[in-house]
């Protein structure tokens, strides 16, 4: 029987972007509302997994030519740099700093080093999930 996944594919084309945007939103908003790097990363992976389910691995690697192993490494690097960063300023490990600024368009927001740390977490989570799924998926 020939598989017909037209509906899935069409929905995915729209939904994947929505999920991705939502993922970025909850990643950035994590410090004040539910979310953060971990969930954001997972949700991003979920979006990519949805793409994988609707299309196939080859198409998806064509769309997103990312080496997820490299992503793990860069994530770990960013996080550990943020952790160690305090040492260069004579404060203990993991000391975060933040500042409230007023930016045009965005308004009153806070800039926080925790976001950098969370960015590392985000990258690692996406990298790890996708490395595992891709490796297992490719080996079929």
């Amino acid at each position, binding site marked *: 029987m020939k598989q017909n996944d037209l509906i899935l594919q069409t929905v995915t084309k729209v939904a994947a972007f929505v999920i991705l945007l939502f993922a970025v939103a909850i990643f950035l908003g994590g410090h004040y509302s539910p979310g953060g790097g971990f969930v954001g990363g997972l949700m991003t992976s979920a979006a990519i*997994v949805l793409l994988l389910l609707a299309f196939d691995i080859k198409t998806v690697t064509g769309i997103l030519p990312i080496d997820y192993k490299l992503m793990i490494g860069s994530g770990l690097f960013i996080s550990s740099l943020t952790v160690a960063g305090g040492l260069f300023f004579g404060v203990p490990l993991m000391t975060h700093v933040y500042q409230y600024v007023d930016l045009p368009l965005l308004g009153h927001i806070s800039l926080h080093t925790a976001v950098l740390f*969370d960015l590392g977490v985000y990258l690692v989570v996406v990298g790890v999930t996708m490395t595992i799924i891709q490796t297992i998926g490719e080996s079929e």
Partner: protein
Amino acid sequence: MSLLHWAVLSPFLLALIVPILYKLFRQIHTGWFVLILPILLFTYFSRFISLTKQGDIVMESATWIPSLGIDVDFYVDGLGLLFALLITGIGSLVVLYSIFYLSKEKEKLNQFYVFLLLFMGAMLGVVLSDNLIVLYSFWEFTSLSSFLLIGYWNERERSRYGAQKSLLITVLGGLSMLGGIILLSIMGNTFSIRELIAKSGELMDHSLFVPALLLVLLGAFTKSAQFPFHIWLPDAMEAPTPVSAYLHSATMVKAGIYLVARLSPVFAESGLWFWLVSIAGLITLFWGSFFAIKQTDLKGILAFSTISQLGLIMSLLGLGAAALHYETLGENIYLAATVAAVFHLINHATFKGSLFMVAGIIDHETGTRDIRKLGGLMQLMPITFTVAVIGAFSMAGLPPFNGFLSKEMFLASMVNVLQLNIFNMETWGVLFPVVAWVASVFTFIYSMIVVLKPFTGKLQLQLLERKPHEAPVGMLISPIILASLVIIFGIFPNLLSSSIIKPAVAGIQPSLAGPDFQVHIAFWHGFEPEVWMTIGIIAFGILLYKTLPKWQKVTQWIPERISLNALYDNVVRGLERSASFVMKVLMTGSIRTYLLSIFLFFIFSLGFTLYWKDAFKLDAGNFAPIGIYELVLAGIIVIGSVAILFARSRLTSIIILGAVGYTISLFFVLLRAPDLALTQLVIETISVALFLLCFFHLPLMASRKEERMTFKLNNAMISIGVGVIVTLIALSAHSNKLFDSISSYYLENAYKEAGGKNVVNVILVDFRGLDTMFEITVLSIAALGIFAMIKLRLTGGKDKS
């Protein structure tokens, strides 16, 4: 961070750039870049001589872990300085020698010099640290770099064997030393050596004193190759010869001696210390010299000779401890033993270093080190021969070389033992000079073997790999410098006595070697017993050397299979076998078995603790009211879980399991935990997808068809057991409020301290951010592990290329 700190760190820093230098300047031998550093350091450290000569001590501190009392305090006193000078001085000569010994085309020079520099830095750290934990860290670093250097030619089976052996034995000792250090710190409440020395009086009566002493000595004995731990040193000779000359004769093996000397003020009052150190030294002295005669490999002879000489120094340090029991300096003949130990330590570094380099030259020029093949090289290599004669005659204790002087002092100290009337020495003391004399005869014999066998006799060109000729000049510089030192120290020993030896002795026995104490070394003291002993050694030595072929078989009276080496091999083999047995029993490869054992352990350990501690408690007053939503959700979960058991295919099970997971996330919504709910929802989605992928990889079930597993009572009991235990623990945990919940602290401080309103996220990235850091590290390792395992299986364990 002072200049002294940078001096100790500089080898490590240079080690970082050596690989870059190697890549950039392939035409220039990397050794030339490295050579600069030990020379600089030697000059730097020699400036301290004028300070320590007056009894001053230079101390530089840097805090490292102040909360645990661990600081990087380096201090330079006479003893530390002596070793620092040896490390950098011999280090310079060895690096220079290695430039000509190791070819820049064929060898992995970048690795070699990195290892060598690591060692140099670590060894400097050992001898200059005041903090015992810092000392221990550097100590293990020397073991590690020695391991890497012995295994430098890692394609050779013997190199790997020797490297492993040295690592196992020295790290065993290192760990026991760590135990000793911890006991010392419990007794004295400090890790600082100087503070421990100040408290040594009260430590003596502590109940942990004897265990600490034994543990520390075990560390020192393994490192310094004392009987019966000496077996690693001969196998360490697989290292390139510059390494043997440096680590395994001049510096690293003397770390144990350093430790004994450094901690003498703490331990030496005890009779046990006196006996253990001197007896272990004497046995090693005899054992090493006796078995040196059996060897046929030139470096093998030198290895056993090093063992024997280390024993000699160790026994002198042991005897020196007796000095503490005599108040006045005037009649204190036992302090002379410590002086002899320090003097011999310097002498040994010079003559043994030169001999090792000679052995290296012979190996380099002829292609063999087997004394049965070598002979008649005197005419071909006159300079090397001269160096060898100076080194070997000094080792044998012949005048006018420096070995003669320290050997005389050694014999004198051994004779003085006869007058000792403490520690029951009246009865057994007589053994000391006898053993010392016999060992010295053997020392004389093997020294003659080292110099006479390769250089005299008949030249057998057909046995040699290449036609020998004199070594290149560069290779000769270092041994010539060492040989000149042998002569200079032999003729003018008092160059050293007040500048180096006296401050070093003051470091070993600070209570005795005060300002009145003077060291004077003289050639001739009149017809004392030691002169007659030396004459006897030479006479008997010559006699026995001449008749060597007739009695050499005696040295083989211990058959190979009951030797210490065989014991070591059997222990290692036994360990490997039992490890692989345990591995086979536990690691069946079936995940079901693993889960069974994990869950069984879980049930029994937790259940037992719960029962034994009588920890179960139910306090219903604390429970939240159960409403209709909770009942509905719980009902769905129960139905789903039961349905999994009866599902016809795995696919159905996976989907139902996902449904159960989603329901649980609804619980989080009910309990107003949006973060958890969100995370659980996404995780559930992804894990279902992942499960579906893995689904293809699962082996077919027993019946080859995808059928439901038959009911198994064991599995049912285990799964119910796990459920019951978890429920009980959850209920008890909720009912036992032993302390206030930390959540109020987080709620109060999340915005104040960390500027975040989402407490869960603030905990993740800030309050407990280090946990998150390690969690993502573990995740990454897991992902790379899965990647590696699957890719390896796909290529059948072979490289794709």
